């Protein structure tokens, strides 16, 4: 039984839980390229308020910053921290593809081999995929990020600029 549990609560997860990265809302939510969303897990009440700041880079939109306030379990808190680490500084397209990779890992029922190149600390969540009730915890902030990013994109799309969908 302990082995199962340890596969869920990897050291990396507990570390991020104790010391979450990028926690605490930053920046001005009303400035251009910034969007803020509030997501909840209806089953357990876990919540995240997440702010995304996009800027225009030479080759498209870039995730300038992600910050958040969140209450939730170790899995959801650690996942938020890891997510922020992974997407900040990446072009939106690339960040979306990391999102997709993480999603596939979570929905793989423990059958998907995690790609450390792409997911870095995120590979620690491979064990979560075997606990269907916890998958939602791990995905809460990733879904919030996707939503906020979509809003920031439509919001800040410079007229005549490139739009992504």
């Amino acid at each position, binding site marked *: 039984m302990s082995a199962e549990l340890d596969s869920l609560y990897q050291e990396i997860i507990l570390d991020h839980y104790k010391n979450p990265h990028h926690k605490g809302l930053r920046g001005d939510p009303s400035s251009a390229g910034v969007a803020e969303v509030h997501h909840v897990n*209806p*089953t357990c009440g876990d919540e995240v308020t997440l702010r995304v700041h996009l800027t225009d880079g030479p080759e498209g939109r870039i995730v300038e910053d992600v910050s958040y306030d969140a209450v939730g379990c170790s899995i959801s808190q650690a996942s938020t921290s890891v997510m922020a680490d992974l997407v900040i500084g990446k072009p939106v397209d690339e960040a979306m593809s990391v999102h997709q990779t993480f999603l596939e890992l979570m929905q793989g029922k423990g059958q998907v081999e995690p790609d450390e190149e792409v997911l870095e600390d995120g590979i620690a969540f491979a064990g979560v995929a075997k606990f*269907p*009730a916890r998958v939602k915890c791990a995905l809460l902030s990733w879904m919030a990020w996707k939503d906020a990013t979509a809003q920031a994109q439509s919001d800040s799309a410079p007229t005549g600029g490139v739009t992504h969908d």
Partner: protein
Amino acid sequence: MDGLLPDLDVIRKDFPILERTLAGGVPLVYLDSANTSQKPQVVIDTMVDHLERHNANIARAMHQLGAESTEAYEGARDKVAAFLNAPSRNEVVFTKNATEALNLLARTIELGPGDNVVITEMEHHSNIVSWQLACERSGAELRWFGLTDEGELDLADADQLVDENTKVLAFTWVSNMLGTINPVTDLVERARAFGALSVIDASQAAPQLPIDVQAVGCDFLVFTGHKVCGPTGIGVLWGREELLNALPPFHGGGEMIETVTMARSTYAKVPHRFEAGTPPIVEAVGLGCAVDYLGHIGLQAIHAHEQAITAYALEGLQSVPGLRVMGPLDATRRGGAISFELDGVHPHDIAQVLDSRGVAVRAGHHCARPAHARFGVQSSTRMSSYLYTTPAEIDALVEGLHHTRSYFKVG
């Protein structure tokens, strides 16, 4: 006989109740499947296994039993989605029965004065009264297609009935009284042409016809678990995802919410939006098993079986003097429910004499009073077959009817 299910004997063994004998030691001849179907052992066993080994509340529970129960419940949703060929599992909402599914729509689709709702004269009361109440509440007008003498929809004045103010066109796929199979795709297209929502009551179709909601193109479709070899207490509302998510909430309660404060709440998306409270969990699990069972035998094969039995029954029934079948006389154009009158004997009395011989049929208006009124009768006797029905059972019915005539000294 052509078309019968090849392993009929084996199939009958799946249904424990078919072994029953009744008062006086007579064997059961169950010809009331349009009322409710019998349950195969595998459905019963699956429910028992769930109750004895995996019972827990769903979604909310994070422990192993909760995970198992949730998986079983959500697995049933996948099976039903496959049964209907639904594009998304989220479109399958579990209700209590077909009646609740129809009332859910009638309560949540917005209607107002000037709007109209079109139904038909052959609907089951659940697809009539629900809309009557909706029209009373909203001031919308209720209209309906009449019936031809052959028991088919009278489409002659369709152009007057369905118009740009029509908000809903709701109709049964197969009539539970007349057996009529309606031209569903035509009706759906007519609704779409006027921007109306199409609602199909597939309660009698789901047991015996392959259903493909994408091919039919309807907006909503409902059916009920207990007529497709599943348990009572479970029904299905299918609808296009974006339409369902645009409807206001129906019942308020656990699981349908996103967040709740004392002053106000926000709501989840479908399917949870419409599944307030603890859902019929073991019932969904039973239904999932039932549609798998039907799928395994094959809906095409079941349909062929029903048509063969129906043709044989139509022939047998017409050999009884003074018997008049209501609805289409061509087996290929109808389902397996056959309602009839017998001169000089009231349906109750027919059913009673048949019952004394073990033959179970239904007598009454079968929750289709307007269709009975259309044919000038208060009530009728209805036999209805299913995948376990044998030609010998039809023979028992026909003999029973001859006996009924002599018992009541008619003719």
